[in-house]
């Protein structure tokens, strides 16, 4: 089972915990973690994210009339208000645990949201700045099964401690799992989004690639070694250290490669991809020593030249 919280937070760099929200249509027997006094949904989400608290609450524990409507505890009486969970059968809500949640909430800043959006292939957002964490970030993803962004509302910013730079992303649980799986796959395969923008890589390493005839791409170095067009990604570990080098070479036509390289087909092209620890293959990233020769040897050995 993938650790969604760990994978997403470590990759995107999110300091707060991911918060699961589970809509319950029956009041659970165990209400030991109900709030001590009525609170707002957005406050409980904030405390779960920042302090690691969990809450299971019912209507009587909720102090925000908008949230009562948005989360489906009550039906509107005079005029329809959206977004809201409908039909309104909600009897209790569990906040905190990710496993089994309906919606995952992530408190993040615009840069982090940009990174998530790229990974998700874009987010169509719908927000007004009212009925926000409860409606825009919780009820809307719950009802539509699609992610949504909330810029929060006055109540959330007034009663909880959200910073002005923070917003909330609501993801259906299934989307959060897919996001974490995508990140895991990218880390393993050294995909284009390996988490290491070239501009963030130390200048000395950039220089060593330059001295070896490589140019800078957005998140990789590229250059020619003999007849091969070579891309090199530098992968980061979970602590942000550059720990691996991914060599990526597109070759036209069918090709058989030897381990540790792997093959990915792309139309008429065959991408051969290999991930190595620089020290193990004798490359010094800071000086660039042995870079060209080692990469050339590895490619030629893998394709049997």
């Amino acid at each position, binding site marked *: 089972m993938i650790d969604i919280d760990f994978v997403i937070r470590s990759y995107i760099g999110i300091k707060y915990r991911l918060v699961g929200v589970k809509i319950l249509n029956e009041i659970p027997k165990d209400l030991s973690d109900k709030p001590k006094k009525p609170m707002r949904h957005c406050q409980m989400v904030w405390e779960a994210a920042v302090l690691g608290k969990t809450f299971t609450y019912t209507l009587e524990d909720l102090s*925000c*009339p*908008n949230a*009562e*409507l948005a989360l489906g505890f*009550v039906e*509107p*009486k*005079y*005029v329809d*208000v959206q977004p809201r969970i409908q039909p309104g059968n909600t009897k209790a809500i569990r906040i905190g645990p990710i496993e089994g949640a309906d919606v995952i909430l992530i408190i993040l800043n615009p840069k982090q949201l940009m990174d998530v959006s790229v990974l998700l292939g874009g987010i169509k957002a719908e927000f007004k*700045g*009212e*009925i926000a964490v409860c409606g825009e970030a919780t009820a809307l993803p719950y009802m539509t099964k699609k992610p949504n962004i909330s810029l929060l*509302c*006055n*109540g959330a910013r*007034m*009663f909880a401690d959200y910073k002005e730079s923070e917003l909330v992303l609501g993801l259906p649980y299934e989307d959060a799992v897919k996001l974490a799986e995508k990140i895991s796959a990218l880390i393993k395969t050294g995909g284009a989004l390996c988490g290491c923008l070239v501009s963030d890589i130390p200048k000395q390493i950039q220089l060593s690639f330059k001295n070896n005839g490589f140019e800078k791409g957005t998140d990789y170095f590229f250059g020619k070694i003999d007849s091969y067009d070579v891309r090199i990604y530098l992968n980061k570990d979970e602590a942000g250290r550059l720990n691996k080098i991914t060599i990526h070479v597109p070759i036209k036509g069918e090709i058989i490669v030897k381990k540790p390289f792997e093959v990915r087909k792309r139309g008429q092209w065959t991408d051969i991809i290999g991930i190595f620890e620089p020290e193990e293959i004798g490359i010094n990233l800071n000086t660039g020593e042995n870079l060209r020769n080692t990469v050339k040897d590895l490619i030629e050995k893998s394709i049997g030249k």
Partner: protein
Amino acid sequence: MKPDKILDIRGEVCPYTFVKSKLAIEQLSSGQILEVIVNHLPAVENVPRSLENEGHKIIEVKQVSDEDWHIIVQKA
């Protein structure tokens, strides 16, 4: 029913709509009538419910134009 006080909070959004309604009704005596004018749709739902939760009586909630709503409430 003639209101004892009219509170026009068009342009205000939650939670200010409820806060201002609550402050206004606190200034009235028991049995007196407050008319609240709002144009923020969520307030049409949550102002009456919040005031009702505080024990006051909602006499009427009516739409008077495309955007405006009047909430008539009697102080407990």
